[in-house]
């Protein structure tokens, strides 16, 4: 089971995880990225490259499935406007063993950050600005090469 979705709709954890759990594996790992409530961001906007983004996420997910023998993987990324506390992204993986599920989950969120065309803009009291890419994200993605 592979599921990739890019949508302005809120992410429903129960629904998304149920799809991955249904694969019958022993372990399901997930990572959820959330708009932080503690650093002054009032609004987060996510722009993407329609078509190319979905294709990049599908390639990444297929790579994770092959590399860790996953029974299911789901990548759901929200676009548009989000408030603090709202979910931006959910990655979920199912595997016979916990290490495979957790490692594949880490791989997907690390590589999604460098390989999929999304751009974040934050609104704070000081105004609205595009978020800069972080060197730490490049380094995190490279550890899977």
């Amino acid at each position, binding site marked *: 089971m592979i599921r990739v979705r890019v949508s302005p709709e809120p992410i429903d954890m129960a629904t998304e995880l149920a799809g991955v759990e249904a694969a019958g594996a022993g372990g399901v790992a997930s990572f959820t990225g959330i708009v932080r409530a503690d650093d002054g961001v009032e609004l987060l906007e996510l722009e993407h490259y329609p078509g*190319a983004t979905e294709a990049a996420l599908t390639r990444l997910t297929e790579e994770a499935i092959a590399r860790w023998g996953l029974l299911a993987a789901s990548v759901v990324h929200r676009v548009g406007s989000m408030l603090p506390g709202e979910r931006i992204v959910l990655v979920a993986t199912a595997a016979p063993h916990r290490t495979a599920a957790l490692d594949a989950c880490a791989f997907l969120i690390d590589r999604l*950050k460098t390989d999929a065309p999304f751009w974040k803009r934050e609104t704070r009291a000081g105004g609205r600005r595009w978020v800069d*890419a972080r060197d730490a994200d490049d380094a995190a993605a490279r550890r899977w090469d």
Partner: protein
Amino acid sequence: MRVLYFAWVREAVGVDEEQVAPPAEVVTVADLVAWLSGRSEGHARAFADRSRLRAAVDQAFVPLDASVEGATEVAIFPPVTGG
């Protein structure tokens, strides 16, 4: 050739996409960016610092020295920041 812009590149250029017909001497993405810079002040501002630009040719990420010959869709944008 269809050219797409995203994030602050899109804002600086002022449009999210345009149809262009670059001359034969435009071979690479970098050539295309240099040629597009002449179209308006907005283009020039968006493309002033090449180190801040990334590109995709026919929806695949490529370095700026990659070829655009035969491409139907080229996208120019800042480093990605999803997740």
